């Protein structure tokens, strides 16, 4: 797994994609930070992380789109599949590499809030809660991205497919409001909604059920990715 991880990290930083992702993420993060705090005269961290969550839904698929689909396209997939490494290690190695890049980008962009401490009462628990929540949400998006990338050799299709699934998860929270009469459906959508799970963290509560929710979604999509590759290995 470590070898796969190192290889992926090297590929991110010896090609344009890693730098492009980080530059775009950090630049947009800085712009959103300035817009929602400095020029709004507000130390509210929640608005920033909400915008960053929506932005991550669009940018993270660009990070994961090449993970498996590029290997399929340039026909080096067989080398990976026949390597003396378990499929789980391959998938986890790629997953951890993407997570590391995202973690670095999120951490650097979040450090901007340190500027506000001399000027406002920034709620540290709320800040950390939002940070952890976005990290978990990003983990979920990355796992979805890896799964979709494993299904196709076309990187653009992988990116678009990932964005579609992520937006479907995000839309669940909005659709919930439009179901006035069915309590059961609203409860189910509430249970599945990424927004609702995000909410407890934004108030400084580290909610165990939300943590398990994000870990479960990630685990399911990573497991599905392993299953896809397992099927390909045996076909």
């Amino acid at each position, binding site marked *: 797994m470590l070898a796969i991880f190192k290889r992926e990290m090297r590929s991110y*930083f*010896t*090609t*344009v994609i*890693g*730098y*492009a992702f*980080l*530059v775009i993420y*950090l*630049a947009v*993060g*800085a712009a959103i930070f*300035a817009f929602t*705090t*400095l*020029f709004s*005269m*507000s*130390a*509210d961290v*929640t608005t920033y992380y909400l915008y960053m969550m929506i932005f991550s839904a669009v940018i993270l698929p660009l990070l994961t789109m090449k993970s498996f689909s590029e290997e399929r396209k340039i026909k080096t997939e067989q080398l990976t599949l026949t390597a003396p490494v378990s499929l789980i290690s391959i998938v986890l190695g790629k997953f951890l590499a993407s997570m590391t890049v995202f973690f670095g980008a999120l951490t*650097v*962009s979040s450090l*901007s809030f340190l*500027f*506000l401490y001399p*000027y*406002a*009462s920034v*709620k540290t*628990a*709320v800040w950390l809660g939002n940070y952890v929540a976005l990290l978990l949400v990003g983990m979920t998006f990355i796992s979805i991205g890896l799964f979709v990338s494993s299904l196709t050799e076309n990187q653009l299709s992988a990116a678009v497919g990932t964005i579609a699934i992520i937006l479907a998860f995000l839309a669940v929270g909005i659709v919930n409001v439009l179901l*006035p*009469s069915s309590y*059961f459906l*609203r*409860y189910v959508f*509430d*249970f599945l909604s990424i927004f609702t799970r995000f*909410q*407890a963290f*934004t*108030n*400084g*509560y*580290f*909610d*165990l*059920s939300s*943590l*398990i*929710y994000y870990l*479960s979604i990630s*685990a*399911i999509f990573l*497991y599905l990715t392993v*299953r896809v590759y*397992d*099927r390909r290995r045996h076909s």
Partner: protein
Amino acid sequence: MGNFLQKLKRYTGRTNFSRSIVTICVILVAIVFNAVVYSLTTIFGLYLYQPTELDFSLSASTDAIMASIEEEGGVEVLFCMPREELKTHATGSYLLKTVEQMEEKYSDAVTFRFINIITKMDEEGKFFDMTPFTKDENGNDVTIFKTSVIFRSDKAHRVLTSNSYEDFYFLNEKSEPLAYCGEEVFLSLMLWVQKDYHPTAYFTAAHSEIPDAALARVLAAAGYKIGSVNLRREDIPDDCDLLVINSPVSDFERGSGVTSEMDRLYEYADAGGALYVSLDPFLKTPLPVLEGFLKEYGIALSRSEIAGETFSNIVTDNAQGITADGYTLVGRFDTEGVGGDIHNTVLPYSDGNVLLYRCGALSLSDGASPLLYSSASSEIYASGERVGKDGNYVLCAKGTREGENGTSSVFVMPSVYFTASDAMLSNTYSNREFLLAVFGEIFENEGMMPYGVRSVKTETNLIEDLSLREARLYTVIAFLPAVALVALGAVVLIRRKYK
């Protein structure tokens, strides 16, 4: 066990169908596990970390109000969200704090229940039927959400629904919570559901009237239902108990041949209707039709003529005013007549007077009673020129008019800032209590009022003392990592290309 697992693995790995079954099972196990943990968190509150508990308590004046509620048979308040979930809710957590304190102190007057609107079970596992609350008193559909709060007594029920419990907060112009006023909302709605009759206040529209959420909130606290009426198109509803004309910018229409706004207004006044009128003394264009109507109540906006033009008189108090420009001043209660009655009502809850900003002066004649005065050192200015320095100017008044079918009352406030948040949330000034007394006593809305119930200022997220230059500097610093990475990436990739 190891042998069994190996055999299981070999068997399930053999066929696509069995692999699919395993996949489905894994997903189902994950869903069930999540559902179990979600339920346990809802019931027991499983948090890895919780922020510090909120620190505020109930107002002293709540005792009397809750005693009255208990005497009338008590009320029930239903939340459509489990207690533990409310605890983690950003705005709901304040409500829960109030609820817990009320449960402890007033368990005989109010019962709180937390209903899961899916299972329709409360905390004790009892089934609760939501059907009666899906229609309001007029038979219209009411949608119940997780953030709905239902108040009910033997006489009536009321459903309060907002996205994030905003009805329990005093909001600023950006709809951000400035202060939590849940105690007032709880008390006023508990009183409301115990009353046989619920008065209605209608705000006029079509004159660029300022939407005044603070005024609407005080009216709601005084037990009024709120509506809106466009007198250019519709008659004043029969159930109107109070007509609110809030700082109109354009005048009312007087027509002939067709029913005009003034026709409707006079019809209402002749029937003995009550009015609340606030006027903007800084309005460049006077409102002669509306002001002519108010003159019939004995109240006129004081004006002076400067260089052939007429300007409203503005009261300033440079000696005893709050701000250096003299525009922010304290209004003293009249100690006699109607003003004295209001003063006596407000006095137990606040020994301060009212805060006013950019206020005009009123001229009174027969039928009108002063309610508030400026200080003896105050002066009046018109178009920047001092036109009077006698002090004791009338800052608001009540007028009456004998109509064909009854006596109509009007309350006139010549300031648009009386209900500004600083004044309404202040524990020093009595703006809120004054308005409650006006709506309760002058307009004969009987029953208890939530006097003396204080709001809790929520922690502000405002950035202070940050100059534009500093904001730009921090923005540039925030962009530096991205710029550095561009440079680094360029160096690495170019070197790699030409290696």
